[in-house]
């Protein structure tokens, strides 16, 4: 791509460094900003800078937060006796979208995978164990991807929680809602049959 302006080129490269944005999309964004009033760009730049400087991880659950403790953990209406353990902040958002869960979260920051160089010490597991020993906590729900590494993480955490007086559960796995049985892959279907539920 040939640029007539070094300024445009720098801005395009800055956008194109973000995930999901190629050179052409980056150029579209930059040209759009050029056409808008200057304040728009200033506002965008400020929003980004302020976000980056002030965002922090909740000291309780590891979720992203404006303050030391996130809005979910501060919310008096949420049930503090249930902790839902997830891999990432995106999973928190996905579960919040369902509006089916009124407990609190704990964000691990990944799953245990020594081949990727991620051991238990690299994840927020110690803080989870600590939290779970609090007398008000009754249940810990594992909402972790059904992969080999996900299972390792679940078993590992379950082991760490034997001392704490909590019930440990895992989200259900099986045929997706609205899906047809014949299109479910054999591993999923097999697991669904084994973990069938009494009506």
């Amino acid at each position, binding site marked *: 791509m040939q640029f007539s302006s070094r300024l445009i080129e720098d801005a395009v490269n800055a956008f194109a460094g973000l995930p999901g944005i190629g050179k052409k999309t980056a150029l579209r964004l930059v040209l759009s900003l050029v056409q808008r009033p200057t304040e728009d760009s200033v506002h965008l730049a400020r929003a980004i800078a302020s976000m980056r400087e002030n965002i922090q991880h909740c000291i309780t659950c590891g979720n992203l937060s404006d303050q030391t403790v996130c809005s979910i953990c501060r919310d008096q209406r949420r049930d503090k006796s249930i902790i839902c353990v997830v891999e990432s902040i995106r999973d928190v958002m996905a579960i919040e979208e369902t509006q089916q869960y009124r407990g609190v979260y704990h964000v691990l920051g990944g799953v245990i995978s*020594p081949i990727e160089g991620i051991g238990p010490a690299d994840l927020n597991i110690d803080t989870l164990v600590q939290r779970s020993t609090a007398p008000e906590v009754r249940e810990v729900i594992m909402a972790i991807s059904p992969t*080999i590494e996900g*299972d390792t993480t679940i078993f590992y955490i379950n082991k760490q929680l034997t001392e704490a007086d909590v019930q440990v559960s895992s989200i259900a796995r099986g045929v997706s809602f609205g899906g047809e049985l014949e299109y479910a*892959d054999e591993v999923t279907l097999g697991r669904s049959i084994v973990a069938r539920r009494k009506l």
Partner: protein
Amino acid sequence: MHLSHLKLTQFKNYESQHLDFSPRLNCFVGFNGAGKTNLLEAIYYLCMSKGYGSTVDQYSIRHGDRGARIGGTFVLDDEREDRIVVKLRKRQRKVIERNGTAYARISEHVGRYPVVIVTPDDINLVLEGSATRRKLLDNSLSQTDPQYLNHLITYNRLLDNRNARLKELEGHPDHTGLLGVYDAQMEAPAMYIFEKRKEFVDPFTELLTQAYATISGRREEVGLEYKSQLLDTGWETLLAERAEKDRILQRTTGGIHRDELVFTQDEHPLRRVASQGQLKSFVLSLKLAQYRLLERSTNRTPILLLDDIFDKLDHERVKQLLGLVMGSTFGQLFITDTDPERITSLISHDPAVEWQRFLVVDGVARNEAEWKRFLEEE
């Protein structure tokens, strides 16, 4: 079952290639390096979703290209047709489609179109370490039992993680208990694989004995013996006993990845007692036994690929082998040879066998008619 059509795009040294096959015998002839073996490899890909030996997907893409495509049409015994496409792309997951739909898991594909390959490297089954023989077990069992392949993939993944963890610990004891988690997680796949391998040996030995008698015409008694640490002790005890050794060596020393298959002749280790000729006959018998086993358990006639057998096997054995595999109990065959006349001279006396010959030159394969036209145009 047979492969009726093959279409290659940017695969190995082929830019674009269409081929129609005989349901019985197909010969690829040409000089070394022309691309004969690559055609067998493409067929193997269609059946097994990967190349044979240690072929890496990335290197199956033609040099300088970003992706490769292998398309094939299998005609089943009831005349139904299955179109299979394998798409390889640089730095991306490979995709395998059956009749236009991609599989969610590769294990759903493996075993539908059984295949056996005979190559000069097969002699390594006898000469090399135990890994090649476990591969023979895994290859046979994966094609007959999709669960086996799933368990094997899971086991290997857990093993890699467990080994990485042991390295990370650098010889220190594991206070977190993560190794114990792996031990527990590995048990189910390990026991499944162990049981299946154990069950494999007896019926396979029977087929092997028959094949050996046919090929060698001799009466030595050949056999196999499956050896596994799990034959003597349970999974938990095995890993507990090995914990200290694992910590020091920083790798997992107990498990089904240490299994061994011992070949025997008259109850002695084959390598010690067999002559060169006997070894070759034995290796060929292994493949033919595998062929019969797959046929029995999949209820489909496997495709047989014979790579470069003429240069490594003596004339008598080749003649015997061809006579055998051209018999009515075998299905579709693909053979490579450097000498364009050799196969023809061996088979042309039998008009009952329907066959096709392809001449392969620098990444282009032509059937007889195309070849004639090509020579006329030159």
